[in-house]
């Protein structure tokens, strides 16, 4: 372990890895992340792809990144600006410099800073020499040369050698963070378990990087991030998309129903389909449909057949599904529609994040068709909300829309592995064989109708998209019946709020400012609130995960605060919705339409402005 005179303890640090897609930045990022977790740090990560198409190497458009935020403190976002930047070529440096803190540590491969590379990156002079990096702490070893030197006699070609460059940097980082390099080597051994040669080469390079760092004078001080002591138990690092998939699967196990996903690939939701497709060992059925419409309709069919069913998509796909969402609603069949939001409108910015599908989720279908909407707030809690969405769908016999987004779906964080026994029960109410069955008879408490699986003798019945008569379910054009059914369907959904957990409010009971966020804005908004609270400001914070129906205590909470500010990554959809629901309050709003997550710093600033303006 490094013993450096100058060890700085830090609460939290942001490290950004950037390079071409072939540079192994994703791998190095994961290695760093896993090691941090092993050492007990809390963490959150977020990959940053330039666009769906792989752009030419060495260009700005081709830069792909991976950001990790680690902390002794609890971590709620993947971090604002970077404390440490790893940039494997000039384009990666040029693109990311504006996302670094002043004085940040910058680690580059000096060998990659050639005239040819500058041209590709469209920069005029060498940033290592032209003063660009004057105010940064630059570590610029000749990584390529070093790697080729170390592996000169290894018998592998230089292309293969160059692919180990990232491990030289990893070695430097292990030193810089006062970490035992053996942890990194263990990671490699696991990762490349089937390719011992790769393990050998990369291990040599990692060690070389570490040694280099020990010797070089550029490293004046190293960082120490102590373990997070609030988190105890068994954890894993999980992305939001994986957590969503697992939450659905856990709900399936809990309910005793097999799971079916009908889906069509679309960025950034595809991972959910891919994750679920892996788990045939748990009986998961994935149907990769010909389009989004077939995706949801097949899921409706599976739900009719008595399985726990879901469909997953992103904005444009949700548009295509909207007609069928109405069908699921009027047939009152359980179905979870996962929508991983991305930058819109239309194809928009498909690899970027936004919260712009809220109104679509609320209203995007014909007729009066109110459907419960739930939004997750962190990669890890996607598990819980996916689970909850299924529980509500099944127990209340309704489609449910679960909103996550690119930031949550692709980002990761530490997730405490639950005990299956501790998860809530999920109890489907099926029609029994040879008992009288009325398709639209309802449970008096929830108003849910009874689910009758084909194969149940005596429960033969017909459902469909036409309005049906109360209880009996015959096709009905009777005006009074329509009014009644409309009211019943709505009331059924409104009653879901009866079983919500209490809406959590952080900070003061009464205060000058209540910060409100929903879904994935929570991390940044909460962190900004925390900053203000620490400064002694009169603030409180609440985040909405249950979007429709809203928690009943919402107005009671709102009325305790002088000002309410609603933060969201759109042009003001949630705030407009709140105004429609609770027009008695005045709402301020913070919106960002850059298809990028909020930064804690910008929110802190905004909230301070509001408090000062008072």
């Amino acid at each position, binding site marked *: 372990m490094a013993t450096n005179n100058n060890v700085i303890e830090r609460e939290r640090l942001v490290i950004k890895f950037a390079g071409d897609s072939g540079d192994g930045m994703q791998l190095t990022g994961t290695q760093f992340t*896993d090691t941090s*977790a*092993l050492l*007990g740090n809390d963490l959150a990560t977020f990959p940053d792809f330039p666009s769906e198409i792989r752009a030419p190497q060495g260009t700005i458009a081709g830069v792909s990144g991976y950001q990790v935020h680690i902390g002794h403190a609890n971590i709620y976002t993947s971090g604002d600006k970077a404390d440490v930047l790893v940039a494997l070529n000039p384009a990666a440096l040029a693109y990311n410099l504006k996302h670094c803190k002043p004085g940040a540590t910058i680690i580059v491969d000096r060998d990659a800073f050639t005239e040819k590379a500058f041209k590709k990156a469209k920069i005029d002079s060498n940033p290592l020499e032209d003063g660009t990096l004057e105010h940064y702490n630059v570590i610029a070893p000749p990584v390529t040369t070093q790697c080729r030197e170390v592996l000169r006699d290894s018998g592998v070609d230089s292309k293969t050698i160059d692919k180990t460059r990232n491990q030289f940097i990893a070695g430097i980082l292990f030193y810089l963070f006062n970490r035992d390099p053996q942890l990194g080597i263990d990671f490699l051994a*696991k990762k490349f378990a089937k390719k011992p040669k790769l393990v050998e080469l990369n291990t040599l390079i990692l060690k070389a990087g570490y040694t280099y760092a020990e010797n070089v004078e550029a490293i004046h001080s190293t960082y120490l991030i102590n373990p997070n002591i609030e*988190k*105890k*138990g*068994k*954890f*894993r*690092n999980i992305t939001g998309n994986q957590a969503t998939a*697992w939450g659905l*699967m*856990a709900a399936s*196990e809990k309910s005793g129903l097999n799971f*079916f996903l*009908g889906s069509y690939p679309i960025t950034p939701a595809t991972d959910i389909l891919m994750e679920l497709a892996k*788990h*045939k*060992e*748990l*009986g*998961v*059925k994935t*149907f990769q*449909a*010909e389009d989004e*419409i*077939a995706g949801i*309709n*097949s*899921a*409706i*069919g*599976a*739900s*009719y*057949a*008595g*399985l726990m069913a879901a469909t997953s998509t992103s904005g444009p796909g949700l548009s295509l599904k909207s007609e*069928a969402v109405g*069908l699921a609603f009027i047939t009152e069949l359980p179905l979870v529609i996962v929508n991983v939001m991305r930058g819109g409108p239309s194809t928009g910015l498909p690899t970027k994040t936004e919260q712009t599908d809220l109104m679509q989720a609320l209203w995007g279908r014909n007729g009066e068709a109110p459907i419960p909407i739930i939004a997750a707030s962190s990669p890890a809690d996607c598990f819980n909300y996916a689970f909850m969405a299924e529980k509500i769908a099944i127990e209340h016999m309704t489609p449910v829309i679960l909103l996550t987004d690119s930031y949550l779906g692709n980002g990761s964080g*530490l997730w405490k*592995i*639950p*005990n*299956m026994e501790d998860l809530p029960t999920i109890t489907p109410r099926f029609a029994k064989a040879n008992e009288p069955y009325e398709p639209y008879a309802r449970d008096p408490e929830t108003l849910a109708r009874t689910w*009758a699986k*084909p*194969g149940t*003798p005596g*429960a*033969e*019945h*017909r*459902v*469909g*998209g036409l309005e049906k008569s109360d209880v009996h379910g*015959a096709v009905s054009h009777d005006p009074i019946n329509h009014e009644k059914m409309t009211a019943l369907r709505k009331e059924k959904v409104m009653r879901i709020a009866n079983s919500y957990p209490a809406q959590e409010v952080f900070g003061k009971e009464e205060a000058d400012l209540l910060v409100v966020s929903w879904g994935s804005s929570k991390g940044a908004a909460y962190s900004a609130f925390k900053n203000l609270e620490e400064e002694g400001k009169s603030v409180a914070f609440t985040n909405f995960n249950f979007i429709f129906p809203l928690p009943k205590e919402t107005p009671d909470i709102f009325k305790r605060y002088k000002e309410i500010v609603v933060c969201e990554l759109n042009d003001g959809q949630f705030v407009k919705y709140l105004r429609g629901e609770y027009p008695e309050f005045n709402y301020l709003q913070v919106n960002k339409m850059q298809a990028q997550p909020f930064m804690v710093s910008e929110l802190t600033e905004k909230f301070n402005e509001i408090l000062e303006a008072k």
Partner: protein
Amino acid sequence: MTDIKNIQKYTRKDFVSDQEVKWCAGCGDYSILSAVQNALPELETEKEKFVFVSGIGCSSRFPYYVDTFGFHGIHGRAAAIASGVKSANPRLNVWIMSGDGDSMAIGGNHFIHVLRRNMNVNYVLFNNQIYGLTKGQYSPTTPLGQVTKTSPYGTIEHPFKPGELAMGAEGTFYARGTDNNPKQMKEIFIEANKHQGTSLVEILQNCVIFNNNTHHEITDKTTRDDNQIYLKAGEKMIFGKEKNKGLVLDGLKLKVVTIGEDGYTLDDILVHDPSMEDPTMAFLLARMSLPEYPVAVGVLRAVVAPVYDQLMESQIEEVKSISKIKNMTDLMNSGHTFVL
């Protein structure tokens, strides 16, 4: 697969629902309904295992009238819904009931994909060459030039031939029947049900109100012997009032010949084999149309091929049998975990 001795003996009545049938008087859909209701008792399947799925259209009202499980879906999506039902529970006996507009206009994509996947369902296509429910617009099967409510000067669209499109989509079963031949329809439905995979049955159906007599030349009792050929496996391709006409192969074309004329004898006539894996013959037969050829009815193609829902089940069973992960607890605790 089903345990036959446990299945009660059903009659047609067991499959008649209490819903009032709401088709126009004289609509061809009535006879299709009754042919299906006649066939169901012979399929040796518990009543509660049948699921009828439809889209939207006059024909798509079908599920309401059969006393089994039924799903009246949305326009064009019957095949997608049915694919979900069948994948979810391969032990159900799933029927898709759909019109030419429902299947080949808005539902065209699901139509070709369900055929390609060879989902084990029975697919009855009610082809009246018109949109009935919306009152008479042309459909993708309406003949070129026909005047309809949306083509006051005649359509300018070349129509699909359902059987041909099904072959193009690598369909494994295709049959054709006519709404005025209930006995034949029943036979065909029974055959369709036997087939493992997507059994497409096109019924030439008359819409008395908006497209009356569109199939008249083919189906009329006075001309049908000459204008139809009922193909049966293993039998010669013979037709005509006098049973003296037949089909022979002439290069890559079929040719109608009269037995005893031009030197053709019974031996020259082709023998029908719907089980040929190569779809070319079925393609030729499905394409036959008046006046050059009689229109083929009966089972044109029925070949053995892998079935989607069965493959899905067996893949799951296989993975289950070899995986060490038996439940969510195993899964969540597998791989990289950290104890803090």
